[in-house]
């Protein structure tokens, strides 16, 4: 039985007790999880992991997948499992988040299969650049900045 199989039972149990927390434990393993639509995204760690990084990363994964597949749900995972494997490979290596910007990822992780000889993708220079979110060679005639002001109000 792999560790993650303990996750759902523990989640249900805690939910029933009304003591659900974003961090659950089974033995020496901690599960850090978020829920998106009907999906649970779970990270596991045996160490004193940087939990803020873990949650930031999980939300980032949701964002990247959503940008790739429009909607992230069970079906979109089935439909795209090959590319999801590819993406996960680029998103995280040995527990270290790597490139999580979907704009950049889309430059070299694409849905079409590629022949290696002809036009195989190469890592764009931006992957490891200082400004990772901006592809190279973008030029505008006017220099202007647009800001979105988002206000949220909490009331009943």
């Amino acid at each position, binding site marked *: 039985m792999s560790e993650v199989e303990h996750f759902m039972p523990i989640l249900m149990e805690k939910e029933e007790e009304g003591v659900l927390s974003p961090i659950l434990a089974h033995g020496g393993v901690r599960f850090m999880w978020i829920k998106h639509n009907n999906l649970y995204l779970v990270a596991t760690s045996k160490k004193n992991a940087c939990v803020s990084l873990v949650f930031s990363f999980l939300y980032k994964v949701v964002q990247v997948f959503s940008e790739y597949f429009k909607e992230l749900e069970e079906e979109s995972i089935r439909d795209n499992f090959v590319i999801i494997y590819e993406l996960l490979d680029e998103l995280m290596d040995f527990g270290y988040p790597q*490139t999580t910007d979907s704009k950049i990822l889309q430059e070299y992780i694409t849905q079409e299969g590629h022949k290696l000889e002809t036009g195989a993708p190469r890592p764009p220079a931006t992957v490891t650049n200082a400004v990772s979110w901006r592809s190279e060679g973008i030029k505008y005639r006017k220099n202007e900045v647009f800001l979105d002001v988002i206000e949220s109000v*909490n009331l009943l």
Partner: protein
Amino acid sequence: MTDSKYFTTTKKGEIFELKAELNSDKKEKKKEAVKKVIASMTVGKDVSALFPDVVNCMQTDNLELKKLVYLYLMNYAKSQPDMAIMAVNTFVKDCEDPNPLIRALAVRTMGCIRVDKITEYLCEPLRKCLKDEDPYVRKTAAVCVAKLHDINAQLVEDQGFLDTLKDLISDSNPMVVANAVAALSEIAESHPSSNLLDLNPQSINKLLTALNECTEWGQIFILDCLANYTPKDDREAQSICERVTPRLSHANSAVVLSAVKVLMKFMEMLSKDLDYYGTLLKKLAPPLVTLLSAEPELQYVALRNINLIVQKRPEILKHEMKVFFVKYNDPIYVKLEKLDIMIRLASQANIAQVLAELKEYATEVDVDFVRKAVRAIGRCAIKVEQSAERCVSTLLDLIQTKVNYVVQEAIVVIKDIFRKYPNKYESVIATLCENLDSLDEPEARAAMIWIVGEYAERIDNADELLESFLEGFHDESTQVQLQLLTAIVKLFLKKPTETQELVQQVLSLATQDSDNPDLRDRGYIYWRLLSTDPVAAKEVVLAEKPLISEETDLIEPTLLDELICYIGTLASVYHKPPSAFVEGGRGVVHKSLPPRTASNESTESPETAPAGAPTGEQPDVIPTQGDLLGDLLNLDLGPPVSGPPLATSSVQMGAVDLLGGGLDSLMGDEPEGIGDTNFGAPPPAAPARVGAPIGSGLSDLFDLTSGVGTLSGSYVAPKTVWLPAMKAKGLEISGTFTRQVGSISMDLQLTNKALQVMTDFAIQFNRNSFGLAPAAPLQVHAPLSPNQTVEISLPLNTVGSVMKMDPLNNLQVAVKNNIDIFYFSTLYPLHILFVEDGKMDRQMFLATWKDIPNENEAQFQIRDCSLNAEAVSTKLQSSNIFTIAKRNVEGQDMLYQSLKLTNGIWVLAELRIQPGNPSFMLSLKCRAPEVSQHVYQAYETILKN
């Protein structure tokens, strides 16, 4: 067309079919087959039998197919190690592919194949990739070193990969630097002693430069690494802080928290007088507030961390109460954490707002949340005295709602409010009594019973009320039974005439019909007490109780400091050190905040002065070191409240008078230990509060143990020769110092080795550090004939003039007789200055420990001491070093102790004892750190004799 079709294979014998497809000549069919295999693997089917067929597809020119085969390899290589060797050649070849994406893919996958035989073949390709021209390959190779280290640490060291990795810290590409830092940090964690990261101002500078250029994740790796560095002085700390501060405005909460960690840690080194310190404090608030707009899980992590930050530096968020107000759609775990922080931030300035909020919360639907909100109102009352009245009336309003769990929580907290403000709000008792029948939770029942017992004289039908509980005595929980027993005894002592029957009934229920030893023992004590001496019983049972304070749920200062070093990690969410939940974490190094080291002395000296010192009196001339210390020593450097709380001190004094320290060593520690976290629990009554009037009635109970305490007074060293005869014209003086029941004396032995009779003795002390002076003239009654010896005990006091001596405990003495005046100097052991009321209140201890800057902490090792913690406590206690609390952490005994010097200086100690290890670790904290060395010597002397 989607991939989901690969999951839908229902045919039997599909393995065979897949095998055939994998070996097909058609590339498209092959790829389809591999996808089916991966799909099966994903849903947990075992497709390891296809290993050779899948590996055969590895040599492909299709990148997508290659990735899938690699994925398969990672999953199954461990179960097929022999066949995995087949893949090695392809890996080696791929590591030299012209496309960096392929090279990186190969090196990334290689590291994930945890098969020993393979790892050796991978060293050469890895070495090449670490020096690859493409940063994408180098950053992947850097992580691969960490992977390989996890499989075979020795191999990584032998191959020199660690050095290559260190070189990558100076790489031109920020992402390579970040991954190298991450890999090295992880490797360093498993080798705490190896100075792998070798952080120095130069390497730190490189990291700070890379920090501005790498991805958000890279920034976190670098910040977490920076947090492990200890700057050499406050200037370096400040310059690092200045360069880290911009990270506070990052959109990624994790970056913000890691930056906060670095700043909180390095702030410790900055002087509070520095302008920059204030600036930094101001800069920390907005990012912390912004964290509360993140996703709920991140909010939760942020709140748990803010809880630590608020305890460490309350000034940062003191004006930000509003952002912690609960939103109706917050998840429950966020709501509960917010409540906690609201209470921590509650002050006179914002209490009205807070109370209005809490009252709202108490009408919500979520039971747990409502309960906590009601408790919070009680805690506010206890914390902010001015609000107590409003809190009580709010609680009464809530009781009127008659919502069962609200009423019960309200009663529990009202009991605490009574404990904090006795004789102030008892008018509400009538309202409370109306709700007696609705209480079904043990804690609420116990609280109500306590209230009835405590105020029995004001409740007309107290006996009826208590009697009603008595009917189901054996069905009650222990908590309620104990409380009921105590309450009825209290009632009896207050209204003896009407309640005799009741008290007999409860005593017999507790002693004869109960299996619970706690209950039985308490019953017997009351019984004997009542039957031997009712007056004494009254003084014991109805003794004045110590007031409770709000600080009971604060995290211990040493743990808090450690947790600050772990901001953003699981430890900071659990509020536990990593060793408590990481398996195999015993070897984990404890992190601690850096000590303050100022670059120039002048910024430091005002810091050491006590807070209460008048600032206007700064002398124009800089005083000499000696005068300064003399002044310091004269001031009462004790904690801000003068003297420990009433009850504690009266216990101490009373016991000392009677039994010379014997009884309080027996009982002193016990109730403190129990009081631990039990914030509002009513006092466990009698034994703890035994004051002066313990009569003969109890003595037989304690006879057995009082033996421990028979050695009264401090350790006395054997006499040594202070003044040899040849230096004093025939007068030899030897002596020692003693302290017994509060009085210090100098025991002298004078021997006349001259040929003539000696008369007219007198003695005088020079000014000394603690103002020791003879309290009476030196009385030598008869003339001292040749060869005669006389023993004299000279009483001393500490009201003489003060001058700092070097060493601190040096005493210069002049002795006169009819022949001449002689001078000698001697060192007195510091423990003669440890006063009897040196037991600090537990809360005060925590607060003081936290308050004293870390630079004042001194650490010593006491070697070759074979005593156990118990014996150590007892031994030290007889010399007025009091154990306030004892904890067992990972098998070590931690004793928290306090002592007070005659001039009011408190010394706080943490003594760490490992069973079987004769070396103890002693940490001392004191506002006048000069005394630490001598206190340590006193410990040595006392423990080794």
